[in-house]
Structures are given as C-alpha cells and as structure tokens.
C-alpha cells in the first residue's frame, strides 16, 4: 500500500513521462540506475511513458522530464506538444538546460561545414543545438551531465509532498571542502568548482578530476575572477575556454574570453611585424 498522506496532507502521485531529444540518454539511465531506491521511487509517481524502459505509453501526464537539446525542427514541434500537455516541464541534464556538449558544434557558426565534416555530401537535417528554454517555457531545471540520482529523488519527493524545489545557490567548492578533498589547484590542475552551481557533491573533484562546469554557473558566480586566477596559475587560454564552453552553461564567458584572446593574439602578431 503506497502511503497516501504525509502528516495528514494528502499526497499527490503525479503521472510522469520521460522524453528525450538529442542526447546520450544517460540521464534517463541514471533514473534506472537507482537500483537501491528504484522501487520506492516508482511508488512515488506513476510512470506513463518511458520509452527507454517500457512499451506502453500514454499522453496523459502532468510532469514531463525532458532530456536532450533541440537540434531539428521536428524536435521543436514535438517539444511544443509536450509543453501543451504537461503541467510541469522539467529540463533534465545539461543538454536540456544549456545545450550540453551538443552545443559545441555551434561554436563553428557553420552548420554546413559541420555536416560535411561527418557526412560528406550526404544530406542530413540538423540545426544549431538549443537548450529547451529557447523553444518553450521550462518550469524546473535538473542540472548535471549526468544528473545525480540523489538529486532527482529529492526533487521528485518534494514535488509529491508539495515542498518547494530549490538548488544550492553556492558553488561546488563548498561541497568539495565538506568532503575534505585536496584542492586541485594545489595539485596543479584547473577546476571550475569555484563558479559552478553545487549539488553534485563535488563529484569530479572528489576523484581528483577538476570540475568542467556541467551544472552551469552558481548564483553570483565570479567568473571573471576565476579566469584571471586560472591565468595566474599559467593555464592556457585554450584550457580555460575548453572548460567554459564544454557544457554550454558558461557559453557567454567562453565567448568573451575567446574574443579577448583573439584580440591580444592579433595585437602580438602586429607587434611582431
């Protein structure tokens, strides 16, 4: 018997559906990767569509968890239909929230070249990779590449209880320090932890692997400052840009840094002449 109230407040078991667009489907898999708590998780909600795991599907849902970014007109159309049906639309994972690694191809500003690079003359339809919010209104973001299952569980539990859902506003360093990790800068590695939104429990720094900012900027992230800190630590502009542009959350800052670097390069060249 699933519990039907919490302290006398009736619980609402929402009908949920999972959808994916341009993505690796890893975020959905993370949900199935919940082995230990999967059964409790499933009794919180009623899954009505989850193509990666089930054949039955229904269009009657309240919460749509959407993975992936939008790279084709048919995807945009389908997403809009989902938006119409869903009361709550959740962007799940970095691709859905920021474009994810998919948006790396946008940096060439040359879709034709991109297509030819992979398919030669063979015609393929594909546009710029866009986050969901460029197409529809998104009610809730679940950050991360991949998403952290503990976080999804917490969010869904809160939705069921009618509790508010909020993300940490502070950066990853807080969690990294709480876990007593050695700061990667001490070991000569770059890390975006000081500006990236926490919530992953410092997943990467915990394995002595610097953060790449998959969860996007924290509230009040001082990105300019971390850029100059990385420069002081002698990390090349390429290294800094690689991190900032990887998942799309820091796109704006990566763009600015690129422009700045290009300018100083051309200045140097001119000076050399």
């Amino acid at each position: 018997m699933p519990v039907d109230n919490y302290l006398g407040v009736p619980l609402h078991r929402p009908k949920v559906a999972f959808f994916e667009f341009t993505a690796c489907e890893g975020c959905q898999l993370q949900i199935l990767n919940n082995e230990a708590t999967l059964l409790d998780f499933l009794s919180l909600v009623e899954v009505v569509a989850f193509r990666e795991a089930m054949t039955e599907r229904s269009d009657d849902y309240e919460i749509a968890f959407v993975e992936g970014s939008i790279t084709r007109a048919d995807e945009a159309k389908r997403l809009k239909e989902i938006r119409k049906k869903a009361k709550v639309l959740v962007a799940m994972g970095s691709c859905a929230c920021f474009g994810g690694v998919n948006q790396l191809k946008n940096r060439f500003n040359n879709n034709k070249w991109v297509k030819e690079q992979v398919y030669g003359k063979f015609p393929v339809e594909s546009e710029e990779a866009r986050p969901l919010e460029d197409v529809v209104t998104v009610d809730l973001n679940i950050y991360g590449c991949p998403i952290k299952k503990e976080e999804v569980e917490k969010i869904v539990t809160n939705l069921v209880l009618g509790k508010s859902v909020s993300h940490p506003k502070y950066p990853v360093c807080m969690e990294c320090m709480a876990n007593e990790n050695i700061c990667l800068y001490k070991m000569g590695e770059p890390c975006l932890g000081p500006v990236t939104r926490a919530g992953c429990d410092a997943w990467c720094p915990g394995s002595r692997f610097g953060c790449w900012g998959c969860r996007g900027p924290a509230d009040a992230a001082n990105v300019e400052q971390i850029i100059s800190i990385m420069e002081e630590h002698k990390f090349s502009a390429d290294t800094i840009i690689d991190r900032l542009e990887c998942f799309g959350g820091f796109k704006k800052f990566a763009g600015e840094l690129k422009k700045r670097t290009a300018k100083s390069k051309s200045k140097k060249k001119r000076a050399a002449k």
Partner: protein
Amino acid sequence: MKISCDIKVKHLSRVEGHGNIHIKIKGGRVTEAQWEVVETPRFFEAMLVGKKWDNAPWICGRICGICSIGHTLASIRAVENAFGIVPSEQTRKLRLLLKHMETLQSHVLHLYFLAAPDFLNTGSVFPLIKSHPDVVARAARIKLLANDACDIIGGRRMHPTTTVVGGFTMLPDRCKLESLKRRLEEAVTDLHRTAELFRSFPVPDFVRETEFVSLRGNGEYPFIGGDLVSTDGVRMKEHDYKKMTNEYTVARSTAKWARLSRESFAVGALARLNNNFAFLHPAARELSESFGLRPVNHNPFMNNIAQLVECVHVTLESIAMINEFLDNEWDEPRQAVKHKKGKGVSAVEVPRGILYHCYEFDSAGKIVRSDCVIPTGQNHANIQHDLTELAAQSASMGRKDAEIELLAEMLVRSYDPCISCSVH
C-alpha cells in the same frame, strides 16, 4: 494461407535511441521490410575538431550514456596510441576491470529490463516488480553491484572521472575493492539463477548466415585492443579499421552503415563469442554449451545468451583480477603525457560490439580530424537484412500480425541497439 499486414513501429521502445520498424506484406509477399534510424545526429566528430587532446575522452564519453566507460577508454587509448604512450600493466588491468563492470551492468540491464519483458509478456519491467519481485530484486542486485564497482574504480558509473590519458587520477580504495570482491562472489549465484530464468524462455528459431566481426583475443577473451577478425576469415590490424568497416550512408538512416565480405556483418556479444570461444572462462564456456551455443552460431536471438555467458566470464575474471590487485603493491596511478603530431586508432569491445575511435593531432596536441565507428552503426545493415529475412519467413509461415510485430521488435532488441550512440 496468404497473409497481408502493415506493421509500423514508431520509436521502438526498450532500446536506446530512436528507430522505426516498417513491415508490409501483401498477399504473402513482403513488399517492405525496413529498419529506419531517425535519431538526431550530434556531430561529435566535428565538435572535436580544434579541441585539445584532453577533451577527447571527456567529450566522447558523452556519445553514449550506457557505454560511456567504453567510449572513454577507447578514446583514451586512441590518444595514447597517437602519442606513443604505453599504459602500465596496473593501468591496463584496472581499465579492463572497469570495462568488465560496465559490460556486466549493461548486459544485465539489457537482459532483465529490456529483453525479459518480451518473454514474460509485459511491456516493461515495471509490472514485474509485482508479479516477479524476486527476479527484479536479483536484477537490481547485480546491476547495483556492477554500478557500484564502476563508481569505485571509475569515479562514477556514468561519464567516469578517474580515467584519464596516462592512467588514473587516483586508485580505488583497498577496502572497497575487497568488499567488491565479496559481492562479486555472491553474484555468481545470481548469475546462475539468471541462466535458469533464460533457459525457461523459448529462443525464437531463426537462422541467417552472417559474418561476425570482433577483436581477436591473444591468449585471453578480448576487450581492449588487438587484431580485428571476422568469421569469414578476414584478419586486420587495429589501424586498418576503416577497411574492416567500410562505412556508407543510407537514405533512411542518420546512422552510417557498414559492410565487409558480404552485404552486412554483425558485431556484439555473439560475434565475440563466435570468434573467441576458446578464450572464455571454462565455467562460462560450459554455460554456453549448456545452451547449445557454440561457434559459429547464426541465430541473432542467441545474442542474449551470449551476453549471459559474458556476464559469467567477466564476473569470474574480475574476481581473479581483484585478488591479484590486493596481493600486489600499487604503483603511481598516472604517467606524464607529452603530446605530439600524429594519428591514433583504438578498437575496444564495448557491450554492443567493437568500437573504434581514431584521432589525428597537430603538433600543438589539437585534434585535426576524428572518426568514431560505433557497434550499433555496424549492426544496422545486418538488422535490416535479418528483418527482411524474418518478414519473408513469417509471410511463408503465415504468422499473425501481432506475432510478426513482436518477433520483429524482439529481433531488433536482441542486438541491444544503442541508436543515439550510432548517430553520435
């Protein structure tokens, strides 16, 4: 009786990614039997251009959520091959252990969550929670173990973090490895139960003469690197992978297709087993024979059984490897990396078959060109030809619509296709 039917499966479920099946039979004649791949491409090969070498494994792991560890390792090895880095024996073993745990995780996911519902007449694993709680609990137990193992060794179960060019950022915790070993030993029993379960499922009787491509083991069942072979007698070196895959584009697919000696070939657990039966762990070989699975088996549905056999193989081999680790002193986890101009190819056996990554670097260590050939991509043509044959057989045998539809779906699923991965 001459049958007619028109089957359209849009976005086949319980597979990774988006694919459609169309079968049209008119008066007992197959007019259409199509496997369509409609997944949106992501253009990884283009997005890597201009990126520094250290980005490659991190980004390429994202080609696929299910086999992200395989992609990461393939990518790392391609970079190492290009720079002339030879991993230490410790690194090589630890990578293999990590790989094994991914194989176990992925195969169990496919066997229980994606394939089994077809045999138990449900649309998903969810109703089984009520009807077959012990089965689901067992699946969850093995999967959890394998996933935890990936966390311990790779930093996390998906998009690993400790695996880098040159080795590992850090080594697993000794105590955790020990408890992992104990859990693996317990898992052997669970795998035997799994075998009993699958023994009770009727494997559709369908055979189509096929060429099977995989790595060729050199004394051990192959997973990372080695020569490329096919059951038709082709044998090649890793760097000649393009001659092994011969990729081409097809109108109804955003994934590229492949061919070798015939119009199509198959990769995956069955292919590996067909080419390397002798290298299987004896217990795994014995299990295989008990299912009547011996090389060269041409029934694609037997891929599920081959997966099961591999589960046993990787579990037993992992236990032995952990024992060896625990007995030895550990070295530095990581060696320094010096980039240089050049090209590197790597072939790795991921759960769904042989995977190739190839990068060309300039003197600054930036990628000039990259190429990834995904197992499911190599399987697409074979799926298509199997489907045509299955439709023809069904037409001549007078199978019912629903039966054909289920069989067709099961056929595609037995390849455990990873479609979004194939359209990376």
